[in-house]
């Protein structure tokens, strides 16, 4: 059972307090978008063995959504950060680079 730090409350939370909300940093495509872009937005998801960026909600706490960067193999957590951003903050990327040099995720890489 994972523990993640809620960046809003600042507390370490058990997974039972949280709700997993899928992949982070999706770019929305609406009316007028191509079938390919829309399909990618709605259905195509990363399924990495390693570094991943996810959405979580502190559902039984403050109710805020946040993002977590973690390793899907070892479950190591590199950090959590508020959801109001288009990409991970530099310190999160640095934290990953320090432990997993050469990492990549979507178009991001070290």
């Amino acid at each position, binding site marked *: 059972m994972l523990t993640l730090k809620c960046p809003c409350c600042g507390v370490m939370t058990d997974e039972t307090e949280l709700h997993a909300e899928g992949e982070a940093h999706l770019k929305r495509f*609406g009316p007028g978008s191509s079938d390919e872009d829309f399909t990618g937005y709605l259905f195509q998801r990363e399924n990495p063995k390693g570094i991943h960026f996810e959405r979580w909600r502190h*559902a039984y706490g403050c109710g805020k*959504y946040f993002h977590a960067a973690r390793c899907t193999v070892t479950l190591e957590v590199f950090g959590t950060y508020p959801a109001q951003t288009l990409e991970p903050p530099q310190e999160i990327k640095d934290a990953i680079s320090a432990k997993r040099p050469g990492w990549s995720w979507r178009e991001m890489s070290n």
Partner: protein
Amino acid sequence: MSHRLPQGGRLIDRRKPRTFRFNNRAMRGMKGDTLASALLASDQMLVGRSFKYHRPRGIVASGAEEPNALVNLGTGDRFEPNQRATTTELFDGLVAKSQNHFPSLDFDIGVVNDALSKFLSAGFYYKMFIHPRPFWKHVYEPFIRQSAGLGKAPDAEARDVDTYEHMYAHVDVLVVGGGVAGLQEARAAGEAGKEVLLIEQTAHWGGRAPVDGGSVGGGPVDKWVDETVAALAEMPNVRMRLRMMGAGVYDHSYALGYERVSDHQPGNDAPRHRLWRIRATEIVTATGAIERPLSFAGNDIPGVMLASAVRDYVVNYGVTPGRRVAIATNNDDAYRTALALADAGVGVPVIVDARSEGGPLAEAARDRGIRVEFGMGVGRLLGGKRVTGVGICRMDSDGSALHEIACDAVAMSGGWSPVVHLWSHCGGKLNWNETRAHFAPDPARAPTGADGQAFVRAAGAASGALTLPEILDGAEDWEEAPLSPVWQMPAQAEKALQGKSWLDFQNDVKVSDVRLAAREGYESVEHTKRYTTLGMATDQGKLSNINGLAVLADALHKDIPAVGTTTFRPPYTPISMGAIAGEARGALFQPIRRTPMHDWHDAHGADWEPVGAWRRPYAFVQNGEDVHDAVMREVTNTRQNLGLLDASTLGKLIVKGPDAGRFLDMMYTNMMSTLKPGRCRYGLMCSENGFLIDDGVVARIDDETFLCHTTTGGADRIHGHMEDWLQCEWWDWKVWVVNATEQFAQVGVVGPNARKVLEKLGGMEVSADALPFMAWADGEIGGFRARVYRISFSGELSYEIAVDAGQGQAFWDALMEAGEEFGVMPYGTEALHIMRAEKGFIMIGDETDGTVIPQDLGLNWAISKKKEDYLGKRAQERDHMTDPDRWQLVGLETLDGSVLPDGAYAVEAGWNDNDQRRVQGRVTSTYHSPTLGRGIAMGLVRHGPDRMGEVLDFPVPGGTTVRAKIVDPVFYDREGEKQNV
């Protein structure tokens, strides 16, 4: 015969006898006994029959690893199968019965399987029972179910009368295992000022050390144990729990503890079990080691035990399994058993040692006059229901030349395997130790936590440190000579002997089965496990796994580490369902949400229906009628007079802010930003995938404030949905959402007399001019602060009135009293459903199922054509969503007036690829309408709206077909004259 020795037994109190019953026979034990030691003291070595061959089986071990001595324990509401006699502490009045025998333990008819064992080898189910096909269901399966299996299922009517609870602990260090290593670890952590939880699965501290002996700092190890326990008890930062097992280790250093609080004193006030949910910074597994059996022919005959278990029974309980106990070993440790037996005055006719020489322990045994045979093995054991002798042979022979020695018990030792289960649960890796022939934790590959650092550490025997001096500073014990790995005894045992050499006692898997699996191509240890069922019983192969995979490795000509182990999964030993459930049973299973008028409903005949976590009255049943009658009466009365509906459960989300209108334009398919304050609009919500997820009436309170009604079950979900988009996509929009569902009690005042009762109560103007259809207003009614919505889900003149939740009951009472002269009656959810279906209104969850878009339901009028965007709009433009062949909403009228079954399919000519009838539609809602006096239904039908008047066939259970005509879904008051008055 097994019996109680005249003296000895460090754990028993001979002055305190305990009586119990085994297979209806009264027996006596002593305080401190386990059920197993008490059975042995009463010469009850035979305790069960084996799973497959129904062979007689006796007690093998003295702890959690016991494979055979499983009993049906207790009676009635406290009955529980598959309880290990070795971990069951004896108490007065204990009742136990042996398992898996018919008609009796001593004479079991199923033993015929043993004679047929040649035909019941690994995989026999797959090979034997394939043909003829119908035989599986009618002949083979019933037979197998009757003859296989262990414990009896509890009576279907029995209810667990004990209580259980969950506990939570957050500690710096969790130490699992209260042997010398665990005690030492706890003391070190405690002295360092850390919060420590030390748990031990048995009722005693010290583990094996007090039995195995040795000294620390010149004093006996028991003294060290007592002193350390006393020191720990003085530390306020150290908690110690006996009878608590480390059940599992999970991600991010989470662990489960299973505390058997009162199994040993049933019926007291304490809960029976506790499940501890522990989060520890560090977990130390000091879980000890388990002795391995030796694989020789007849090693399952009652009277054969692990050497360490024999020692335990002699030293701890003053019980010996026999008068003449032969010993078979490949290591020095078993000699401790010989010495313990000799000390207790029990005869040891021979020690058969597979090695060519032993160490000082062997010398000591010889000095005591015990016959030691090096380079020898057990070729075959003599006896049926009890050991009568041992046939010994040269270790490197095929076992044909035997020399027989009489004995009535055999103590065997094949070496020790560290208990690596908890280490492995969360990914800890193992190394093969060639010298000691066991897998031990590799500290370099420990389970890692959220910070990427190791969070589990193995200590003591669980780490592979098997001797006392390796574990405790200043400890001294016998010097031990190395063991010699023995996976089959004798080394070249002929085939017939392999077929009687058991690996897994509980699941009846033999050396020959594993070799057969290897010959048949099962190279992976995981596949062999499943094919042979090795290690798949309730003991999860605690005794058998290493021996089994060593035999597999040999058969595959591979190294043991190349074959590897199967996966260790929690729990370590089975834990009770009660402990898992904890307090969550009966009324406490799930919190129930109640409206302010809940108790009134309950007192007035409410037939409750769960809706989400809420309870809503399905109908209010009066004397002399059944539920169906009540529903019919409620519909008719509401349509003719006046009905009250408790609508408090409807979701009420307040959406406020300068961008609230813009936001709701994205949330709903309709245009909400153009709604005027004081007006209401019915809205549809779709997921980004285009599918309808919720509906409800939106009221605009003021320029910046909307109140969105959701479905009863949807309030929390839709609130989360709104938050998601506000927090994660449009976080720069100025909107705030509050879930105010429980702040209001809401009452639907419905029917031709609705306005009359409100006017009688007096207060705000509710006339058609002042408050027209789809308007709302704040005011006072009968002295209650109220918000009144002129909306209708029934097709009648209807007001939904929200008052402060605390006033809900008083307001309801006022309506009931004032409504008496107008024929007021409360109505429930079923009447609500029927009335909305009569009007052709859709219901989320009936007409929708996650694959339905608003366009399927004739709701195009509620989809804005002007908006550039809303959630789901892009998805609804996809080919599949605009396909004219999508099933569309229609009404369905049975030709004979009957009620169509819910979910019934309309068939068409032909068959699909799965040999099923082709279908062209299905029923989504179906009721008997008292208003129309006939069955009415709604359904989705291909090209439905273009096929009015066509008759469809609906096959129904029982082989008949109901015919129904496609009609308009609005059955009642098509022009809406009744609601708009």
